[in-house]
């Protein structure tokens, strides 16, 4: 089982995720239409790039935008969750040892205590994200079954990973579950809302170009995000 999951399944999951997202990324930009979107992307590449960069950069900073600042609690749990969700899978020592053995290279590694901290932060934040969905009427009305599924799929690797980490019950079982959910997540990325992992950058870049080209950028005003 372990062999199967770390072997062929891993390759398939990673391949589906990367190729899927590459395809979606390319399709996104090819599907932009200067006339229908009413943004002259090609005619003004430089203001467009500037706007795109600003739009992404500002929103990646915790409390970097009006949007983030008006919702301080949401911002805290969003970054609490996302920093963990991005950093832990990529930089966890265990993951990188695995990567080294599979691909022959590795990324910088997190120390165990930082990794633990980020994981707990992510899980707790995710809990609040869930709570928010249930409690706040303006979020509840938007919530669909898919939202819970996505939250579950992105949280499952953390929970199972922690079970294995703290050796609650059978280590082997939790490790397999962890790998399984991790791969499920990778596969889910291109096909669900999880596609935002990449498409966030695409969508933000687009609006950034819009502001950079049409909505003031070329008049010399930067959008005060």
């Amino acid at each position, binding site marked *: 089982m372990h062999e199967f999951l770390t072997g062929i399944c891993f390759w398939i999951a990673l391949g589906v995720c990367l190729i899927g997202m590459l395809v979606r990324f390319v399709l996104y930009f090819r599907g932009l239409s200067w006339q229908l979107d009413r943004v002259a992307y090609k005619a003004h590449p430089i203001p467009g790039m500037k706007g795109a960069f600003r739009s992404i950069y500002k*929103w990646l900073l915790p409390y970097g935008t009006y949007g983030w600042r008006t919702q301080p609690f949401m911002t805290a749990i969003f970054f609490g969750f996302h920093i963990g969700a991005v950093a832990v899978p990529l930089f966890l020592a265990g993951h990188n040892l695995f990567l080294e053995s599979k691909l022959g290279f590795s990324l910088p590694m997190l120390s165990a205590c930082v990794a633990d901290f980020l994981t707990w932060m992510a899980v707790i934040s995710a809990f609040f994200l869930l709570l928010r969905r249930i409690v706040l009427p303006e979020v509840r009305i938007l919530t669909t079954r898919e939202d819970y599924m996505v939250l579950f799929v992105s949280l499952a690797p953390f929970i199972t990973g922690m079970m294995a980490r703290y050796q609650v019950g059978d280590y082997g079982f939790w490790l397999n579950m962890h790998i399984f959910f991790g791969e499920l997540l990778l596969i889910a990325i291109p096909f669900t809302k999880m596609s935002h992992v990449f498409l966030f950058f695409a969508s933000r870049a687009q609006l950034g170009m819009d502001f950079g080209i049409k909505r003031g950028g070329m008049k010399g005003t930067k959008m005060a995000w």
Partner: protein
Amino acid sequence: MPEGKYCNKKPIETPEEVNFLLSDTSGNTYYEEMKSLDVDSDLMWATIQKTMKSRLKTWLEICAHCGMCADSCFIYLVNKKDPKQVPAYKIQSTLGEIIKKKGKVDNAFMRHAMEVAWSQCTCCNRCGTYCPHGIDTGIMFGYLRGLLYQQGFVPWEMKIGAGMHRAFRAQMDVTNEDFIETFEWMVEEYEDEYPGLTVPVDVENADILYTVNAREVKHYPEDLAEAAILFHVAGENWTVPTEGWEQTSLAMFAGDWAACKMQVESVYDAMERLKPKRMIGTECGHAHRATVIEGPYWAGREDGLPPVESIHYVEWLAEALREGKLKIDPSKRIKEPVTIQDSCNYIRNQGLKNATREIVSHIVEPGYFIEMSPNKEHNYCCGGGGGFNGIGFFRKQRNQALITKRDQILKTGAKLVLAPCHNCWDAIRDLEEEFEIGIRWSFLKPLVIKMLDLPDHMKPEE
């Protein structure tokens, strides 16, 4: 009865058709007929497949349903935070459903979508700047309006408005002759006070081509005189076109993209015919949006720019004051608490916040200007944008929406509101009528004229 006499899918093309639709008082029969108007699902789906590209599709798909846009929408806030007014919900439950059902929706759904598209969103684009994913719901509502217009599910006044543009190339039944005649008449009325005041018509290669809002011709012709006076005093070499003088576009509010193209092309033709150095439009927000910001795309101009450099009136005014073409007598500056309405259409959507602030610094005594909160690109819509002001069917909702601006103004304590946008001006007027909070409001032109320090040779003889 699938296609009604008044309410149908066919756009209005001629003055006779405009009058015919107008003859249906308040659109009573129109809305009655709408209840049995067929939905052409195939047409709608085909249109969607042709026009809905990755941007909109991705927006609908990746929306995190996080609700961060909720508080950014003034209509949500002013309706006691009704969850049904959350921008993401509004668009997902209308456009989102249409996509999910591949266009197979029924009449009742379409009428509901119409209500949401025109009475729950003014396309102010504020939510777009508060969404972490950069999802601009206002743009999506613009798109939805296009689909609804195509199917005939559009408020009566909007159908008429778009029809006016098709029939008259103006938002009201004002002909080219009316325009020139009224302009000349107004200039004549003021020429005693401003010797040498004229309206140069169809002059080629002028520095400035001036375009207006047809409402000025029809109801506020003083505005024309004021524009002429300011150009005259500033010593500008300006002109107006006999054709292509209307800068606004109710067709944009209606979602009638073909009419948008016709309208804006009439202005671009004037530019190409007269070859001015620049085009300047009157103090109107959506007019600028239509002709300068969105227009180039309707007209198929790949660089996204009008044929000649086109600026908003506030940009010209700021420049004229900066360069000393217009001089303000400091003793006549505004000396009472005053605030300014930032029009979404050229502040949020074209970043002209500095121009208006610069004008304020010239015409308001230091210490008397109070910003609204929020302001500049984060300002709330006046409450009447996107066609909301004009639609009788949704008057109640519109009046409710005005409360945001009312409270914003009250909080500043200002007694005078500068409103360099026709639509905002109208909305603020209506909110005074509705709530009587004791404010005055004004375009910039009349205020500036009162404060001018005229060069000696321009002073009228005693």
